[in-house]
């Protein structure tokens, strides 16, 4: 047999796309022994109420995240740059869906 099993299964993050959704939405996390089991666990834990038509899972330790310590240098500089929003255009009345 293979090496001794580890005490705890690795953590996975779960993303589900709904019937009408265009993108996968992060819904939570779970433990699983491998990628295939993570998909099945995600189906059982996060799509029981008919929420999804597609599932993504990814090992939590494969995600690189920004650090809370860097919050100000990362995000504060964009706070006062309203000109980056396209709100200064006037929209003609006959343009729908805006």
């Amino acid at each position, binding site marked *: *047999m293979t090496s001794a*099993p580890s005490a705890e299964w690795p953590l996975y993050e779960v993303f589900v796309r*709904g*019937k009408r959704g265009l993108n996968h*939405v*992060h819904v939570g996390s779970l433990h699983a022994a491998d990628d295939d089991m993570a998909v099945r666990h995600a189906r059982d*834990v996060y799509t029981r*109420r008919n*929420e999804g038509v597609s599932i993504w899972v990814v090992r939590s330790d494969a995600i690189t995240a920004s650090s809370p310590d860097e919050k100000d240098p990362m995000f504060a500089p964009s706070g006062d740059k309203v000109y980056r929003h396209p709100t200064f255009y006037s929209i003609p009345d006959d343009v729908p869906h805006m």
Partner: protein
Amino acid sequence: MTNPTDPAHAPSHPAPDPNDAHGSIFDGLLGSDSSQWAFGTDFEDPLAGVDTTIPDGVDPGDLAAYCLMLADDALVASHRLSEWCSRAPDLEEDIALANVALDLLGQARLLLARAAAADATVVPALPEGSPVPPEDALAFFREAGDFRNVRLTEVPNGDFAHTIARLLVLSCARLALFERLATSRDSVLAAVAAKGVKELAYHRDYAGRWFLTLAQGTDESRERLLAALDEIWPLHAELFATHPVERAVADAGVGVDPATTAAEVDVVLEQVFAMSGVERPDRAPLAGVQGRTGRDGLHTEALSRLLAEMQVVARAHPSGRW
């Protein structure tokens, strides 16, 4: 008229409103179309919207008895699986097993309702004015001797390997049966089977993956799996033995003779065994008593204890409203 915003009348745990912009993390996942609610989920009448006319040339008593066989397999298996709630090896498996149990409970409910609609004399008598619907009366007020499930469904759970081995055999057999039953002349059975096929395909996949994992896992997991398979194998043959009722409904085009599925189920099981490096057990079938087995109402004593626990609350309140 109650005011929905009045806290005195608000439900303590309101169902999430998919149109509420400030609801749960699942916002954006839920559509609001009615297709989310499938046939068989009506809380009042399980057979709402389905034609319950009995097809020509079918004996109502046979049809009811046959529905009880299929229903009781699901009901008893569901109860055994639900015994894992809060006791499974981890949270995710706990929910997975509960999901399988709920699928089977849904099948049982529809089939019990079909049995009652086909022949009302199978439903136990309850006190005058009791609100208990016929499918609940059949589940909670019949004695062990009136249950028609195969004995494989009723034996105690044992360990996780035991549950996986049993679920693999059961779901392989029931899937093969339901695939054929989907073309039944009885529109209820055909609809139940068509819905069940998708559920059972997942159950088989779930059990098959775990079977392989346990067989190829550690020495301990393999040992336990082999012991479990050896233990349940004497109950395997009963799944494919044809009861006279099954033959009658099969001849009438509404049921399936389980013997006709045996070869196909064998091939599937052999594939799982081969991948898992497991030998097919060499154990003789558990004999019946004077030829009578689960389908005749002859059970192991485990069923009486299971039913005592499952039925005690309903029986204490035969006029209770739930």
